[in-house]
């Protein structure tokens, strides 16, 4: 991990799981883009504080579609989901959509049932309960 990555990790209170991640949840992207936006605004150099339209629209989107706002909660969501042998994209879709029932979770991410892993309904239910607990105590 480079020095700058470490610095970012410390500032954003990012966990180890996130640093390895390739797919990001809306709430994680929200923290990254908001942080970047603040950095750019504080920069006195005009060349540094231009944000693109893509950046602005994306920031608007992730702020609106983040289920978790608190950086600790965001970190916990990934850590908890990481325990359940999910593929990265499955983890992100679940973290973004926060299904309330096992049925809904399977409808959103059918692959969690069909991959032949130990993902029975009980395990999925436990995972959803863990997620909703984070939300309660956010």
């Amino acid at each position, binding site marked *: 991990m480079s020095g700058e*990555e470490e610095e970012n990790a410390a500032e954003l209170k990012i966990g180890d799981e996130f640093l390895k991640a*390739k*797919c990001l949840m809306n709430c994680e992207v929200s923290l990254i883009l908001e942080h970047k936006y603040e950095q750019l605004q504080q920069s006195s150099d005009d060349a540094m504080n*231009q944000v*693109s339209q*893509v950046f602005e629209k*994306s920031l608007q989107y*992730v702020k609106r579609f983040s289920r978790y706002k608190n950086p600790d909660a965001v970190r916990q969501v990934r850590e908890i989901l990481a325990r359940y042998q999910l593929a990265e994209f499955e983890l992100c879709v679940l973290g973004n959509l926060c299904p309330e029932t096992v049925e809904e979770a399977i*409808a959103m*991410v059918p692959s969690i049932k069909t991959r032949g892993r130990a993902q029975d309904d009980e395990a999925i239910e436990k995972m959803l309960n863990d997620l909703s607990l984070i939300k309660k105590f956010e």
Partner: protein
Amino acid sequence: MEYSTMFLKVQLPWNVIIAAENLKPGSLMLQRAILIRLLSDFAAKKATKDMGYFLAVTTLDKIGEGKVRQHTGDVLFPVVFNAVTFKIFKGEVLEGVVHKVLKHGVFMRIGPIENAYLSSSKMPGYVYVLGENPYFMNQKMPKIAKDVKVRVVVIGTKWMEAEREFQALVGLEGDYLGPISSPDM
């Protein structure tokens, strides 16, 4: 279905070109010039068909040795950096916001995608209601109107080379899809 989702963290190698007149002595100035050039090129690039939209550079990992370009005197620096990108995939379930309601369907914003089209033919049970603020109505579900958040499935995507952007086709055919009423935070 392609197994991926919207926001991705990627590591990319790029070439950054610094004009001869910007090559001042002192490595700190040079590093800064390279970073500024990278950020500028990154923002200007906007999107590619393969990688999707370019959102933000997160870290600059490596700056390689500069190579002088024969005819111009510019110097080319190979760099490696990390960035967040955005691309959506067929079969993916995600959420967006309606920004335009027409007779045959609605247009939604999903991330930086401005025009994700939800056709009325993909809105089972919904009928168009004419008026100053038109919307789509359903007996059993909340209405679909401007500024409503809707959960959809991606039916297809299209890369528009000239505009450097993606368009998408989305639908509501499937369980647990449709308008969502989570509190706006």
